[in-house]
């Protein structure tokens, strides 16, 4: 109990230090550039307290829960030796964490608006909703597939450079042919798919796998899953824009 408290206190100090830059930037712009008083000081202070506590608890839970389970599952799968179940798990993790991602839902809705304005689809609620859902499932599928490919890479020891560079080249080529309205959204969708809970889990999975397979270096082979997860949605969203 005492140890937990001590850890919490320690990481609370770290959280405060992490948040000082934001506070400084906001205050500087508010007072010196825009020259306006702070609105609602009480609410702001409360918000800052919440953010500090939240970050502290999150990092604590990360080290207690997310990292250990990610790694222990990676080790268990490596011992079990069943590639099929491992890949299925990888897909489920990628798909499941993305399909419910709030940032993605927001981007998909926005993309449907763009598509309707650009007369790619009919400008009605139903058409927009089905376009947004289609896009959301496309991205989730893309992330699931990306994690599968990334895990296969770790198993086989393929070098990441050529796969990522090849992927980028595909993005560049597709950019030339994709409808102009979808390009910005496609590029952004790569960034929004990887949420705060997915990233630690996927990282722990990769590092755990690489460290339990002989001949793999966790530093070289363990990282890179997130790179795949942020590259493949760009390709799939542009493909979606071209097909529909």
């Amino acid at each position, binding site marked *: 109990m005492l140890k937990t408290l001590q850890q919490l206190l320690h990481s609370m100090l770290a959280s405060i230090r992490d948040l000082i830059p934001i506070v400084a930037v906001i205050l500087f712009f508010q007072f010196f550039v825009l020259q306006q008083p702070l609105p609602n000081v009480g609410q702001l202070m409360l918000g800052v307290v919440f953010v500090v506590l939240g970050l502290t608890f999150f*990092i604590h839970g990360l080290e207690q829960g997310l990292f250990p389970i990610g790694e222990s*599952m990676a080790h268990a799968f490596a011992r079990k030796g069943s590639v099929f179940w491992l890949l299925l798990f990888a897909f489920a993790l990628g798909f499941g964490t993305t399909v419910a991602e709030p940032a993605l839902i927001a981007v998909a809705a926005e993309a449907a608006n763009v598509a309707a304005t650009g007369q790619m689809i009919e400008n009605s609620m139903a058409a927009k909703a089905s376009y947004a859902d289609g896009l959301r499932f496309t991205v989730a599928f893309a992330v699931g597939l990306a994690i599968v490919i990334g895990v296969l890479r770790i198993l086989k020891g393929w070098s990441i450079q050529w796969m990522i560079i090849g992927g980028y080249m595909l993005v560049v080529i597709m950019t030339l042919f994709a409808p102009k309205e979808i390009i910005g959204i496609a590029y952004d969708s790569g960034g929004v798919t990887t949420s705060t809970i997915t990233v630690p889990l996927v990282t722990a999975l990769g590092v755990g796998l690489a460290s339990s397979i002989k001949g793999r270096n966790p530093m070289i082979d363990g*990282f890179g899953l997130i790179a795949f997860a942020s590259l493949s949605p760009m390709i799939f969203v542009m493909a979606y824009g071209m097909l529909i």
Partner: protein
Amino acid sequence: MDIVKDVIDTTLSTITDVLPIAVILFGFQFTVIRKKPANLMQILLGFVWVLLGLSLFLLGLELCLFPLGRLMAEQLTDPSFIHGSAAAAKGLEQISWQDYYWVYWFAFLIGFSTTIAEPSLIAVAIKANEVSAGAIGVWGLRLAVAVGVAMGISLGCYRIVVGDPIHWYIIAGYVVVVIQTCFAPKIIVPLAYDSGGVTTSTVTVPLVAALGLGLSETVPGRNPLIDGFGLIAFASLFPIISVMAYAQITAALARRNKNEDNAGPESDSRTG
């Protein structure tokens, strides 16, 4: 009691966010692996901490940072702020991209500071530090990524102001990434690729999106639907470049140090 309602709402939405993940994890744990993890209690407790922490974090952001940040993005891109002095001198039509200098500064600083506070980047930095046995510092990586995001977002704002097509910037960035990949230390490459996707989650995205939309609404001739997007792409491309650059600089410094004094190979190989 609006706050109580907010607390409940945020907690519920975090639970729906975490639930599918928990179902997948524990589903596979009990049906496929069929073994209880050694420290199940600790892990479950960890999930509770994560849930609690994320809810509080999002709630706090919604209470303080987001409204203020969005308001600032609006005010800084507001014609009357930007055009204030410039418009008087040159007339409304001839505002050049330099007149938006405060926007670039804001983009740079807010990109830097929100990245420092990004929880998923902290997570990856902790892991990278652990796996590399300390060779990659937690702060070194975080600062490198933050500088990358900062430069990316300010360049992205410049692009919105001048109205260049986004893909030339992104393609040029990819070319730099490919060239750097050939020369950067092997060990950093996967981590650098990862740091692109890591940077843009909870804290950065809402503020940056507000900035992009505000800017594209204000600048004459920009279409928010087309030009408002794309800042996040900049924010996830540039950290790849800056992390590789960080590793290259560190390696170069280490080499120079070694050449200068051959006495101690451990002298100071971890600058930064």
